[in-house]
């Protein structure tokens, strides 16, 4: 499973990079979202994969060794998801304004506009 997940993460990153290299600003945002998905998954897998129902402290747990599901990466991912959401929302608004102001979604026009 880890191998398969690793390949999936790799593919998600590849999709993100490919989209980031497009000239369209909409695709740029999609690329960023791919990146944040892939990174969340990467942290999750790095913390170790263990199937089963979520564990609670009230079940009498005292150490991770007894409960294989590590809570720490989960907490990190939670934070990452929320921040990622904030960035995406901001980026969407930015893109909307960008299109309104310039009338183009081509990022290369930014450079050409500078030379004018």
């Amino acid at each position: 499973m880890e191998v398969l997940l690793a390949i999936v993460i790799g593919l998600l990153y590849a999709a993100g990079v490919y989209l980031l290299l497009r000239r369209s600003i909409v695709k740029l945002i999609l690329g960023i979202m791919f990146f944040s998905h892939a990174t969340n998954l990467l942290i999750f897998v790095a913390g170790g994969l263990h199937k089963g129902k979520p564990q609670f402290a009230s079940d009498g747990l005292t150490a991770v060794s007894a409960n294989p599901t590590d809570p720490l990466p989960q907490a990190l991912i939670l934070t990452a998801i929320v921040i990622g959401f904030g960035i995406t929302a901001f980026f969407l608004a930015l893109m909307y304004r960008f299109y309104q102001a310039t009338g183009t979604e081509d990022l290369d026009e930014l450079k050409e506009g500078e030379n004018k």
Partner: protein
Amino acid sequence: MTGILIYLIILLITAFLSPYLIRKGGKIAPWLLGMVSAGGFAYLLGFAGFIADGNSLNYTIEWLPELYLNFSLYLDGLSLFFALLVTGMGALVLVFSGNYMKPYAMKHRFFFLILLFEFAMLALVLSGNLFTLFIFWELTSVSSFLLVGFNHEKPEARNAALQALLITVAGGLAMMAGFIMLGQIAGTLEINQLLKSGDLIRNHPHYLPVLLLILAGAFTKSAQFPFHFWLPGAMQAPSPVSAYLHSATMVKAGIYLLMRLSPVMGGTPEWKYILTITGAVTMILGGYFAYSQTDFKKVLAYTTISALGTLVLMLGIDTDISIKAAIIFLLVHALYKGALFMIAGLIDKSVGSRDLRKIGGLNKVMPVAALAAIISLLSMAGLPPMIGFIGKELIYEAKFALPDIGNLLLIAGVLTNVIMVAISLALIFNLFLGPLKYPGERPTRPAFALRVGPSLLAGISLIFGLFPARVADFLLSPAIKSIRPSIDSIKLSLWHGFNEVLLVSFITVAAGVILFLLYRKVNHILTHFNNEVITFRFADAFNKILNGFLFLTKRKTSFIQSGYQRFYLMAIFIMTSVLAWYQLIFTWPEIENVSFSQPAIYEFVILLLIVSSAMVAVFVRSRLAAILSLGSVGYGIGLLFIVYGAIDVAITLMLAETLVLVLFMVVIYHLPKFTEFSSKASRLRDGAIALLVGSFMTGLVLKAGQLNLNPKISDFYVENALPLAHGSNIVNVILVDFRALDTLGEITVLVIAAIGVVALLKLKTKKGSAT
């Protein structure tokens, strides 16, 4: 010694006050400034007796002693000799400038710069620590740059200033590296300490690199071949600057450094060969090019190069007599060349030209200046009874005393001196005697302030020549002793008796007279030869290299700084993944040995969903489809989280994903349809880059899987969630209790993002910026 420090500070303050003084003070102001300099001269002269008794003074303010950096002052015979030269010449030049600079609108700025230079130069020669020396060394380069470019509306002046700066500063940088290495070897940069550790440094394996680096600094500053070409260019500066910086003092800084370090680094074969050869080549080339110049200042510039070469040569020969010769010739040269440069300025001012072909017979309009010039020129020619004669005789003697290459050097020296004699005679008879010639209006009698400097210097040349013994005891012998303590006393006199040296002197003068008589003819041929045959010009070559470098830099910058976002991203992606792959390859065997769990069939389905949705999102042409597929990638990942027991994460992800989808829907209809911007080739290239990064990330995940994480941190949270935080959902407890401050930060980010979104959406587009 504190007194000297106070004097330095006074000089610096004077420099900063001088613009106001010049503006308000009128005629008297330059004389006052000259008095400040002359006061320093008198004060320093007071130390002469004390120093002549064999004493030295040291004053140190600790700065960073661990790195051998201190602010130190050191006064011995050598630094006193140079300090007197700097302050004495400074006083005369300031008085001279008072009249010379009158027509310049920016003259107050000129006085500031030249006083700043005097401060820097005086501090340089009084420095007791090589780093202190370096700082003032650079300050002299900077003030020289500003003074050479003083007529900054002239492009030639700007170019010459830049050239002088770049060459001397590049040398200075090399020299700094040399100083650092020297500090590492000797464990000190204090000059009085270094003087004792000469053997340690000479026998160190890094001796040669240190020597070469330091010589780079000295040679660039003192205009040695092949760095000599900045000095003729620097003649763009006003004449007082040429007299002061580019003949009497600043260009001697390199010589000073060589003299200072001669007991520390000198005496080795490397030292002897490099200095002798460089000095000899510079000496001959300077003389040769001086001969065919038609601009008075250019003649003086090239003879200065020649004289600097002679000095380096003398230091390279490195015998008792050559050291003596070097010190005496240095004084000789400063006296006559300072005077001649001032006279060049004076002629320029009253005749309006410096072209030797157009001017002549100036003794009829400016008898005093002409007399001073003739005396100085006789000293330059090395004729008795001037001090120049003594200097030249000693140089010959030094070359005679050298066993192997002495004859060759002697021939070179004689040749150079023959040229000097011819140039001096030509200048005397054409410029100052003979029929009166001038290009424009009849020249006026120069003002007293212009005459006083050259006359005084010429007088000193004569007096020192007639009574050399007094000067030698008082001033020269302490300076020589601090280079070479073994020398007891020096005896100077005009008459040495009939010997081989006198014979060579006779031959020199005779040949010089013949060359002078042929001046017109030879000059014509030489000018032709120089212009037609020697097409290579160092200054032009330097400009070409500089322009080529700037061109390359420009190309490189416009290549790297393309201005297109995706090229920056590309560079980052490629560099990162190539470097990371390089690292990953070494750990690959470890990864292969790790065993992994088997996937269940439903997991397989989820993965397939993620991958296929991702592919759709990347390649589909419809915006809506792309966004929806991205959403299903997110939901797929959420499902995976559920399978692996991360219920909180899954909930958050699903919620966030839904919100993003909704937001996207809101915006999407205000955006244009997807358009294909890029060509197939560039899409293939991007695909390759994407796969490179993706494959690296896969490797990274595999590598991460077999790391031994430290479970203690997680154990702490698991153990204490209930007893300390009174919560049983450990993930939640971490977020809201243990790491509550992080969560606060996270919320702040969200708030900022929300404010940003509102601001962007509510903002009205200004008229005109919208298209």
